[in-house]
């Protein structure tokens, strides 16, 4: 990779009619890390990710990936980005392997078959590689979706609620997988509304009503608020803000 993975967000605003989804978000990330975007439903997590990816245009401010503005990402900029949307986002009529081969074919990979096999191994789906998506359980579909996001070995990865609907064991497996990607040099943004989960992140961005409530490490949040878990920390931060 030419430059280390990085993300910058400056004064990002996005309105949908009368609703303000993002209200002046600032963020600067540099180098491999797992960064959680946490907050209740409707706090702006998905909008932030979509603005970063250039899928939504901001109504104010700007964002960039690897120094390139989100609205003018080049072919090479896009080749280093992995994205797992909130929806299933895989083709139900295709097998797991065919889905991976399709997404791999959108990138100029030198050895596509090897990339597909590597992604299958990463999510431990080799045994069901030739099963149609429509024949898989919800957990397996999420794993297949994650594999599609990683098949081209990206170093900036956006995962929108990747663990939603998964049982605790599968969730733990997914977080292990995210850690392995970080060790391989990736910067990973993971949105979640399971506040307890963000304990797995290196740093956490708490969003509320489109604004940054706080951005720090999980340990620092617990120390600052005296809470026993991240859910308690979030509530304490909310209370503090409301009383301010």
């Amino acid at each position, binding site marked *: 990779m030419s430059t280390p993975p990085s993300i910058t967000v400056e004064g990002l605003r996005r309105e949908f009619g009368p609703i303000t989804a993002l209200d002046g978000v600032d963020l600067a990330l540099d180098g491999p890390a797992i960064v959680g975007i946490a907050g209740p439903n409707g706090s702006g997590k998905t909008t932030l990710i979509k603005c970063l990816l250039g899928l939504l245009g901001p109504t104010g401010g700007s964002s960039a990936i690897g120094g390139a503005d989100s609205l003018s990402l080049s072919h090479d900029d896009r080749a280093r980005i992995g994205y797992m949307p909130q929806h299933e986002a895989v*083709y139900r009529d295709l097998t797991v392997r065919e889905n991976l081969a399709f997404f791999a074919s*959108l990138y100029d990979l030198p050895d596509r078959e090897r990339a597909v096999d590597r992604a299958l191994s990463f999510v431990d789906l080799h045994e069901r590689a030739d099963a149609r998506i429509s024949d898989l359980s919800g957990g397996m579909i999420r794993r297949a979706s994650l594999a599609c996001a990683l098949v081209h070995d990206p170093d900036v990865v956006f995962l929108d609620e990747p663990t939603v609907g998964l049982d605790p064991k599968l969730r733990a497996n997914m977080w292990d997988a995210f850690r392995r990607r970080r060790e391989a040099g990736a910067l990973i943004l993971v949105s979640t509304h399971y506040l307890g989960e963000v304990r797995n992140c290196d740093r956490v961005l708490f969003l509320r009503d489109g604004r940054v409530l706080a951005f720090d490490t999980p340990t620092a949040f617990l120390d600052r608020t005296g809470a026993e878990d991240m859910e308690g920390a979030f509530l304490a931060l909310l209370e503090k803000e409301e009383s301010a």
Partner: protein
Amino acid sequence: MNGTIPVATRILLSLRGDRRTLALVVVVPAFLIWLLSEVFARPEPVAPILLGVFVFFLTYILTAIGFLRERTAGTLERVLVAPVSRSGLVLGYVVGFGVLATVQSLVLLLAAVAFLDVSFANGVALFVLIELLGALTALGTGVVLSLFAQNEFQAIQFIPVVITPQVILGGTFMPVEELPTYLEYPARLMPITYLIDAMEYVVLDVGTTSEFWTAVAVLVGFVIAAIGVARFVVGRTG
């Protein structure tokens, strides 16, 4: 064009296990043509209309639903984040559904010969050309209208609003020239009017060669406009 071949291949691969859609493409047109041949004592005069409208109608349904699914399932966003050009993506749809439309045209060709006693006065090649132009116009229309639908039901709701008036006014029941002026002008802005015009020339040798090529030129214009609009609206940053 980056993404064209993978997208086209994916569309065709998805159909492999989708027997209902395959039946819609291959079996249903032949069955409907047979059914109509049983109803009409002299089916040949209505053949151009049936042959022109069927492909338009079925291609609209396939592309509108197909693209809607792509959008609502989240796969479209994933493709748009990849290094794929918007033109490559739309062209992939054109190639994928173009192959389907060609298959459908050949099925209709055989069904028309077998059941409607159609002789194709101006040749089979022109028939396939007109079918493809009709299908590509329907494809662009399907992609664009699907962007205004939130679910499959809403995509189907466009049929009585957008397609049925074209069938009614486009020459199915009476020549466009005989319509009242306030209906003739809208009819002249609709692709199905030219589709039926061109098909009447191909099948029954109705009209002159220059009128036929005018209809072809207008249909090519509709194809370029429909695909151009689809290219413009697909993946436009919201």
